[in-house]
């Protein structure tokens, strides 16, 4: 099991550019999440998904889009990157069992200049 994988590990974008952060999990988890972590802060939920074809907004969705065409993949799209989107992005997944916990990917450090 690779668990939750994220690519790329690091990326620098210019203002106005777009990119997609990739996330994949091989645990057959229904639930997947995208968080951002600003320096010295906790995690803020951007988007989440309860299964293929179903996504919903979290606390801070503006400037992002997601899709979930398969159980395994949950890409996060940044359109028109802004300096405020400089952050570390974590993807996570979870089985539907209430007692189960989230499993996190290693994170993507994004800088927008």
């Amino acid at each position, binding site marked *: 099991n690779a668990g939750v994988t994220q690519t790329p590990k690091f990326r620098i974008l210019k203002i106005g550019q777009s990119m997609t952060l990739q996330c994949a999990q091989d645990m057959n988890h229904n639930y997947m999440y995208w968080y951002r972590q600003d320096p010295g802060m*906790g*995690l803020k939920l951007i988007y*989440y998904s309860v299964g293929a074809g179903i996504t919903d907004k*979290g606390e801070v969705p503006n400037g992002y889009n997601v899709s979930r065409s398969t159980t395994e993949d949950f890409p996060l799209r940044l359109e028109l990157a802004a300096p405020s989107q400089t952050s570390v992005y974590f993807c996570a997944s979870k089985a539907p069992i209430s*007692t189960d*916990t*989230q499993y996190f990917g*290693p994170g993507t450090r994004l800088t927008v200049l």
Partner: protein
Amino acid sequence: AQTVTQSQPEMSVQEAETVTLSCTYDTSENNYYLFWYKQPPSRQMILVIRQEAYKQQNATENRFSVNFQKAAKSFSLKISDSQLGDTAMYFCAFMKSGTYKYIFGTGTRLKVLA
């Protein structure tokens, strides 16, 4: 809405000693789960310990234990026999039972001193 508060931004402890990290939360729910996650400098988020609110017994995982006070809405993490590898950010998190959304605190940076 639920909130999670970690009032200690930074703490330090001598190697082999014991340290307690605080977490309080606010909810009107009766059934929920609480978690402590560790984030070392590698940034990987690692589950340390989990507590189900309906269980009165405090969870324990080796050197890590919690003091869960449901009425006080308090969920502190005790690390015994601290090791240098315990140096990390520690996040407290809340999840309402039957849902799948987590609320995280702002974290406590713990440094274990040799």
